[in-house]
């Protein structure tokens, strides 16, 4: 049974669009993902939660088709047994303890009372809520409620764990523990979809990213693949050189230069370049010849967040220079 599942893709979005009345939630999304761990990254309102709702079958696409493990989430109730969801919304449950609430969730997943009780003990231990299991949930701190949400999402041992902003409300220790737990989950060969608007938090957990903005897929792939993609995009490169004017004059003649700006900081040039690799090669050549002294070159591929800003900027049709946030 488990082997049959392995052959199927984790997610298949076939030109999916979803409209909330006249507002576009997801716009012509086409995506195929094999099982694995992915970070779904985008700013607030990018469509992450909508995408998750499509995966869980809570929403039906206006156009296109969604498949999870080869099945339509709208039509297959059994598929839900293979998915665990930890939503972004706060857990607002009054008058019941964590144990009672988890009991309900597991009973709804089809566990008998005795089996659910056994599993609840294990999962509460895992998220560190054993000592608070009989306390009403509404007396929990935000971090404890977050852990309680995580407990219900993994209690039925799903194959795909979906977490929407799981680090919200967690203190540094809680964030570390959550990261460790998710890394462990991935190591066990289980699939993970982690939605976040904070990139550095998810970079520790996975190297595969799905970047969305405005309901559209900006890019997907590993950090390396995305950086290679960036190399082909116009981007800003900051060059610090005491011979700034000489350098500007040399660059002016190159066909792949789009714009050159003198920055407010002395000795700094911000170069908007269509082929960054050509620029790097040329700078290395000039330095090697002793023609120019260069102190520092800062490219856009420093971290994945810069890449994300670049892609968003491209999507918005803005100039690359503006996207880096460097003062002119």
């Amino acid at each position, binding site marked *: 049974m488990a082997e049959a599942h392995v052959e199927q893709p984790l997610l298949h979005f076939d030109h999916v669009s979803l409209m909330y009345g006249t507002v576009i939630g997801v716009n012509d999304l086409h995506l195929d993902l094999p099982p694995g761990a992915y970070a779904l990254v985008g700013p607030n309102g990018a469509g992450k939660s909508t995408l998750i709702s499509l995966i869980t079958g809570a929403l039906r696409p206006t156009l296109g088709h969604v498949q999870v493990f080869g099945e339509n989430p709208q039509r297959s109730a059994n598929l839900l047994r293979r998915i665990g969801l930890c*939503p972004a919304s706060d857990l607002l449950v009054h*008058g019941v303890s964590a144990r009672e609430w988890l009991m309900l969730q597991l009973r*709804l*997943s089809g566990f008998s009372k005795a089996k659910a009780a*056994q599993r609840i003990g294990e999962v509460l231990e895992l998220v560190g809520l054993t000592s608070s299991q009989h306390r009403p949930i509404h007396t929990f701190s935000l971090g404890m409620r977050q852990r309680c949400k995580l407990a219900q999402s993994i209690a039925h041992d799903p194959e795909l764990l979906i977490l929407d902003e799981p680090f919200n409300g967690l203190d540094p220790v809680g964030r570390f523990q959550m990261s460790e737990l998710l890394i462990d989950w991935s190591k066990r060969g289980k699939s993970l979809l982690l939605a976040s608007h904070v990139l550095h938090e998810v970079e520790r957990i996975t190297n595969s990213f799905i970047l969305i903005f405005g309901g559209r897929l900006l890019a997907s792939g590993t950090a390396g693949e995305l950086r290679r993609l960036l190399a082909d995009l116009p981007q800003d490169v900051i060059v610090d050189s005491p011979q700034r004017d000489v350098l500007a004059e040399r660059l002016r003649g190159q066909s792949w230069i789009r714009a050159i700006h003198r920055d407010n900081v002395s000795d700094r040039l911000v170069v908007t370049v269509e082929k960054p690799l050509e620029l790097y090669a040329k700078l290395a050549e000039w330095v090697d010849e002793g023609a120019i002294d260069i102190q520092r070159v800062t490219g856009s591929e420093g971290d994945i967040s810069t890449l994300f800003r670049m892609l968003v900027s491209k999507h918005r049709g803005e100039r690359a220079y503006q996207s880096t946030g460097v003062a002119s």
Partner: protein
Amino acid sequence: MSMGNVAESIRPIESSWGRAASGCLAVARYEILRSLTLWRISLWLAMILFPVALVAMVSYNVYRDGREPPEPGLVFTMILFILVPEVVTVLGMLLWATPIVSSELEGQTWIYSLVRPGGRRSVLLGKYLVAVLWTASCGILAVSLAIPWTGIKNPTETWLVLATLCGLSSIAHGALFSLLGVLFQRRVMVIAFVYAILVEAVLGWIPAVINKFTAAYHLRSLLFQWLDFPITEPLRSSQLVSDGTPAWVHVTCLLGGAAVLLAVSCWRISRCQYTWQSDV
């Protein structure tokens, strides 16, 4: 921290019917547990005591001079019937069955039911079951406490009939208000209240064929049949009570209607896209 696999011995139930029944009972248990609050119990007690208090006051006024009305059985039974299987039950269902979905959406807990196999239907049926239990128990206790005040000559028989009607009314009205709760996401309480006034209070008492489509008509007809009340003019011509239709037809209409409404609710709830989040 490390995540262990679920042992084979604690795997979930495979049968969908078994899972549905288990889920439904789990929701019912959870809802009962959650509703044992001071506010809810006070409301339940208030709904029991208000018909009892009204009947006691009427009884005091009727019997205070030592006189007895010509037909105390009919008068007090009708008062009790209107107050309990009609008003208390409708009010109970308005409070407990109508917000089946809206309370989940407002409490942001709907999403957890969505991602469980059959979770939506289990929530609907489990909450319906609890609403019927709360309301029927409320009605039956109210009837039990009110009957001793009435001076009715056949109290056991009257209690049995009114208690049965409370149960039937809870089942039928519960299904009706649950459907309203499933159909309407916003202002559902207002819609249900308007429905209760227009259909159950006004339409149900209009002397025309149309009142036959209300639960109140079937409940009234059963009351008259089971307690052998005479259907005289102008009651006969006004068509407020059925004359000649067997009791089992009315019971079938109430229970069958409830089953159909619940089936429609189940169908609707498993397909409806409720929105509960602001993040688009």
